[in-house]
């Protein structure tokens, strides 16, 4: 792995060396390293690109890292990763994709991740998307996440795209069974002429299921963002969806929170707010000695922290 790829790896998965626990590193469409552990088995798929990650029931305090790096221009990478998480597990999964495109051709990564989370298991899933490179080639990422939470399971999904991705369509589909809970936290920043589309659908199917979908976004330059969040309450449940966006320069953000109650005891809330940085926030930080630009950076960094 060269220094560019190592830098990408550090950026997306905070990895500076081989991670502890199970891992699978995908580099330019091929496996660059893999390790299974006693409880976490990583098996390459035979019918299509990708891996199955099987985590034994009752596995606790273990982690899996599955980063992807693309440094070749003109590469289109499609991968299917399926996670089968046993009952009563408590695990952390770190994914992410880094693209470095110095060439003039489009580099694209589409990761389709499915999570089948067993009864009473807890999963924390962290995903970061990042791209760089001074070529004219587009850097495209289209992640799809499918989540099926069984009874009493819980999942926290943190998805972040801070920089460099020219075009992205981020699709998440989740079903939540009785007593299970899902938290999605999205952080998104677009700049230049970038376009980002987020499309979340959560079906709260089980009694006392819950979901909290929170998106914080900053759109700069001429970038555009579309945010669609659908929460369907199909049973006695609690759902909350929130989109909070800062627009700057000539950017455009469209937020469409949609809640549907198909059950009398479904309790659903949506909130959406879009606006520029408040002038008084800038003034306050300027009275502390920051320049207007520094104040703006601090406000944006804090907002996306």
């Amino acid at each position: 792995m060269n220094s560019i790829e190592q830098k990408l790896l550090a950026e997306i998965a905070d990895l500076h060396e081989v991670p502890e626990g199970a891992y699978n590193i995908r580099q330019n469409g091929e496996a660059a390293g893999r390790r299974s552990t006693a409880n976490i088995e990583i098996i390459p798929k035979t019918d299509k690109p990708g891996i199955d990650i099987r985590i034994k029931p009752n596995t606790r305090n273990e982690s899996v890292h599955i980063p992807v790096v693309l440094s070749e221009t003109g590469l289109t990478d499609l991968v299917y990763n399926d996670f089968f998480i046993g009952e009563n597990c408590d695990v952390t999964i770190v994914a992410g994709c880094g693209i470095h495109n110095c060439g003039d051709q489009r580099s694209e990564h589409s990761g389709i991740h499915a999570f089948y989370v067993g009864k009473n298991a807890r999963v924390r899933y962290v995903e970061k998307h990042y791209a760089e490179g001074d070529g004219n080639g587009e850097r495209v990422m289209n992640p799809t996440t499918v989540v099926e939470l069984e009874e009493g399971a819980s999942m926290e999904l943190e998805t972040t795209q801070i920089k460099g991705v020219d075009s992205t369509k981020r699709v998440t589909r989740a079903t939540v069974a009785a007593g299970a809970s899902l938290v999605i936290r999205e952080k998104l920043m677009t700049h230049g002429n970038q376009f980002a589309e987020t499309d979340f659908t959560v079906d709260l199917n089980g009694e006392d299921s819950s979901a909290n979908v929170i998106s914080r976004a900053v759109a700069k330059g001429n970038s555009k963002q579309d945010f669609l969040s659908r929460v369907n309450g199909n049973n006695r449940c609690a759902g909350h969806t929130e989109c909070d966006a800062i627009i700057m320069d000539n950017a455009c953000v469209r937020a469409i929170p949609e809640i549907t109650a198909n059950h009398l005891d479904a309790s659903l809330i949506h909130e959406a707010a879009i606006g520029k940085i408040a002038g008084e926030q800038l003034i306050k930080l300027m009275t502390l000695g920051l320049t207007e630009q520094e104040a703006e950076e601090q406000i944006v960094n804090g907002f996306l922290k």
Partner: protein
Amino acid sequence: MLELKNISFRVEDADIRKDILQHIDLTIEERFVAITGPNGGGKSTLAKVIAGIIKPSEGRILLDGEDITDLSITERAHRGISFAFQQPVRFKGITVHDLLSLAGGKNMSVSEACAYLSEVGLCAKDYINREVNASLSGGELKRIEIATVMVRGTRLSVFDEPEAGIDLWSFNNLIQVFENMHKKEGGSILIISHQERILNIADKIVVVAGGRITDVGTPDTILPTLLNASGTCSALTDKLAGGAVK
């Protein structure tokens, strides 16, 4: 020393002209100066003119002899002017620790932050990682706002009505903060207030009404006139006549 020379500020909207400040001449060299007067009299505007948030229509501002009239908010902050807002600003995602660090110009250690927060009556461990957002009460935000000014420890700290918007019990504790600040060696404090206990500890009281300075003096000379004044400052008169918060 801060000198305001012939400061005026007016707003013009269509054919209507409103004079907010008119020919203000004021020198602040004492350690603790209080500005008081009726609501709408121009006090907050004057404070914002000093901090650079509002540019005066006329007049000059000098800080230790240097003309700072045309300096930006940031440049004035670097020259040593701090400003505590009457209504503190909220930030999503920025924690109390972040804000104190920004105020101090460096990443502040938890123990340092703790020292400042305890000065304003907050326990650091409860607050340091909280976001400066709508989850904090008005009184908590006010204390944090004051702490950001204390951290800077500049030669002039301006407080715009620190008592506004907080309950009497909280303010009673807050007065001690200003009494302590007054006792400590440091820069000058300019405080806009209606509270007798604040006015009492001032070295100088400036009364601003109708956009003009109507009186300047020590608490001994000014407070009796405020209490007996008719017409000029009824809100203040009523408040003081009704008894100060003990």
